[in-house]
Structures are given as C-alpha cells and as structure tokens.
C-alpha cells in the first residue's frame, strides 16, 4: 500500500468513524462551505450544523423595535449596516419605518455614521451597533472619535456581543466548533485554549477552500484521539495575542453585560454596553427609551436553527412563507444567515 499522507479532502471523504457534529459558528463559513461545494463531499458520519455567528440573526426582535421607535417617535436618523434593514420587528422592520418617512441610512462602517452626523448637525443620528468581536472595535472607534470631536448629535444603540459564553451554552450541541477566524483575529486564541480545559474542542478556520478543508480534516484527525483539542488553522491572520490595540480600545469604551440572544435567551456577560465615560452616547439613555420586549412570529424556528436543533429546511415556513424576498426570520434576511444559505444553495443535502 502506498505510504503517503492523505490530503485534507481525502481525510474528509474517507472518514467512517463515529458520528461527528461540527458547528460552523461564523455565518460566512456557512455560506462559503455551501458555495465551495464542501457539503457535497462530506461522508454520512460528518454533520455540519450552523451556529449563532451571524450578528444580525442573534439580535433580538426588541432591538429592531427600539430602532423603529427611535426613527419614528424620536425622529432620529438611523445609520445601520444594510442587513438589519429588512429584519422584522414586532410591528415593522426598519424598511417599514422608512416607508413611513423615517430616515434610515445604510453605512459600510460605523465611522461613516460619525461622518453623516458631522454633515447633518441638525439631525440626531443613531448608529445601530451590532456585531461580535470583529465588528465591535469599529463601533468603539466611532464612539471615541465622536466624543473627541464633541459631536453632540451622535449616539449608539448598542447590542454588541462576545462569543466565549455562547460557546459554553452551545457546547453540548456539537463535538467541535469551527471558530470564526476574524473573531479570533481580534480576540486571539487564549479563550479557545481555556475552552479545551473545560472539555470544549474546536479549530480556528479561515475562509478559502484550502483553509476550510484543512480545518475540517484537522477536526476529524484530532477527534480520533478522544481528547479535547484546539488548533489554530488560520495563523496567517490569527495570532495568539490577537489584535491588542483593538481589544484595548474595546475595553476602554465598552464593558460586559448580560445580553439576550435570539433563540438562546439571556447569556451572562455575553453582551457589551458603553462604559460610564461614554454613557452620554447611549441612545437608550439619551432618548429615554422604555424597556421593550419584542415578539417574533411563533412559527419561525430561527431560535432552533441558531442552536443547531433543527435545519432551516425543518421549519414549516422555510421556502413557503419565508424566503429571502419575504423573510419572516432574521436567519433568512441576513446574507450571513443559515436559512438564507440553505435557500440560496438549495440546501437540504448532507448536513
């Protein structure tokens, strides 16, 4: 028999061991795995489940309701990433608010929202700050620059989240995580090393075909050893120490708080809020927003999808009442959402 090392693809295709559930946490991983055809080469014993790594998907309905209230009742100009605009709120989405005359401005970066506020001194401008460790530094940069510029008409509605405690909540849903490479680019790998000590396995994965296949092959090979493991399979971007200036900035501007995740409920110390010196930029305080609890469509199973409890195609709304053109749940709205990926790639195959 030829004595050579198998390629990553060969390791994956030839695997016949115990059933492995691998959770890809990042929404872009979900989409790239579909787009690159990786699901089609998976053996039966490898199941990929989509986790909660799409920031728009885990943002609770109440946040959309708060933004709609700011836009319609408080006449604030809302600056937001585009994928939040069509997420249904209890009564309407931000797109619906825009149709009633609200100003909803899509921005590429939180810093664009600061520039918009500078250009429109007569408007109160609120940036909708959602996202994980990857996105939060940019929101913190916006807060810091707005404060330094003495910009009195700029504030943030903050719902930023951090991943570590979500991994802990979801650890029994999976045998190993494909950790989201760009979260670790900021956070470093210390959390993953700590999770190994708690019995949680995973590898950091990049985004190319080579990187994703390698990460899956590493999970398969290390799982055979029967011990918790961690491997950084994206070292060209992810350094053990992460991005130190970005973390210092986050720590200066924001502090941990408990946070509600759509489908997962409240997870302790998994959210972020503005620290006291920046609290004058908190839109909830500035506009005296009441506490709002949103209601989502009871038939929508986004919550189960986000926990890996069901596939998007197991939801009775999938492809029927809920499509990318007419989304009911956040996972169908966002380009990063698992339902959107399943719909786009015809996806009820292998996983």
């Amino acid at each position, binding site marked *: 028999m030829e004595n050579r*090392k198998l*390629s*990553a693809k060969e390791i994956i295709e030839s695997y016949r061991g115990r059933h492995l559930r691998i959770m890809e946490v*990042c*929404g*872009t991983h979900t*989409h*790239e795995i579909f787009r690159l055809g990786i699901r089609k080469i998976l053996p039966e014993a490898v199941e990929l489940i989509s986790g909660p790594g799409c*920031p*728009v998907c885990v943002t609770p309905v109440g946040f959309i309701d708060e933004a709609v209230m700011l836009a319609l009742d408080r006449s604030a100009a809302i600056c937001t*990433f585009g*994928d939040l605009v069509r997420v249904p709120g209890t009564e309407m989405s931000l797109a619906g608010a825009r149709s009633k005359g609200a100003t909803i401005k899509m921005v*590429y*970066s*939180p*810093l*664009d929202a600061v520039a918009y506020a500078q250009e429109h001194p007569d408007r109160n401008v609120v940036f909708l700050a*959602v*996202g994980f460790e*990857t*996105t939060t*530094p*940019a929101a913190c*940069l916006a807060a810091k620059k707005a404060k330094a510029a003495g910009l009195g008409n700029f504030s943030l509605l903050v719902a930023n989240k951090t991943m570590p405690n979500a991994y802990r909540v979801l650890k029994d849903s999976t045998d190993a995580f494909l950790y*989201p*490479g*760009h979260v670790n*680019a*900021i956070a470093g790998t210390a959390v993953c090393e700590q999770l190994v000590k708690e019995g949680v396995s995973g590898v950091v994965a*990049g*985004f*190319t075909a*080579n*990187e994703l*296949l*390698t990460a899956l*092959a*590493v999970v398969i*090979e290390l799982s055979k050893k029967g011990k918790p493991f961690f*491997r950084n*399979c994206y*070292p*060209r*971007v*992810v*350094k053990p120490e992460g*991005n130190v*200036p*970005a973390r210092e*900035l986050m720590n200066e501007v924001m502090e941990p708080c408990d946070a509600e995740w759509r489908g997962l409920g409240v997870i302790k110390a998994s959210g972020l809020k503005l620290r006291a010196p920046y609290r004058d930029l908190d839109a909830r305080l500035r506009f005296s927003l009441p506490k709002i609890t949103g209601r989502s469509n009871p038939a929508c199973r986004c919550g189960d999808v986000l926990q890996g409890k069901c596939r998007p195609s197991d939801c009775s709304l999938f492809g029927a009442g809920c499509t990318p053109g007419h989304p009911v749940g956040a996972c169908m709205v966002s*380009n*990063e959402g698992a339902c959107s990926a399943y719909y786009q790639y015809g996806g009820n195959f292998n996983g």
Partner: protein
Amino acid sequence: MMCVGISAKVVSVDKDTALIDISGAKRTVSADLIRDLEPGDYVMVHAGTAIAKITDSDVGETKKIMETL
C-alpha cells in the same frame, strides 16, 4: 457586515487611514487598529477598519498544518 476572506493591499497610509486595493477596487479605511502599517502590506478589512495583517499564502500555511497531523 460579513467576514470577507479576501485580503486587501495597502496602497498608501495617511495618519489614521489607509488607501487599500481589493482586486482593483480602491477604498479608504481606518488604520487605527494596526500598528506599523506600511504600503505593500496586505490586511483583512472589516466594517471599514483594517483588523489584521495577513502574511502568507493559504497554500503554504495549510500544507504546514497538514504536515503536523
């Protein structure tokens, strides 16, 4: 807001911003979060902010990882 796995080449750096080139498309992004950024570097960009330098090809890197298995 998606994590795009495409690196961008730094064309020029001006104080806290950098002009980047992604496959021919140019855009100014924040360079606040990367120390010692220089023209010719490759970076990952997220939400208008350079978040990490990228230093090697994926092929060389994945080959090395596979050799450790």
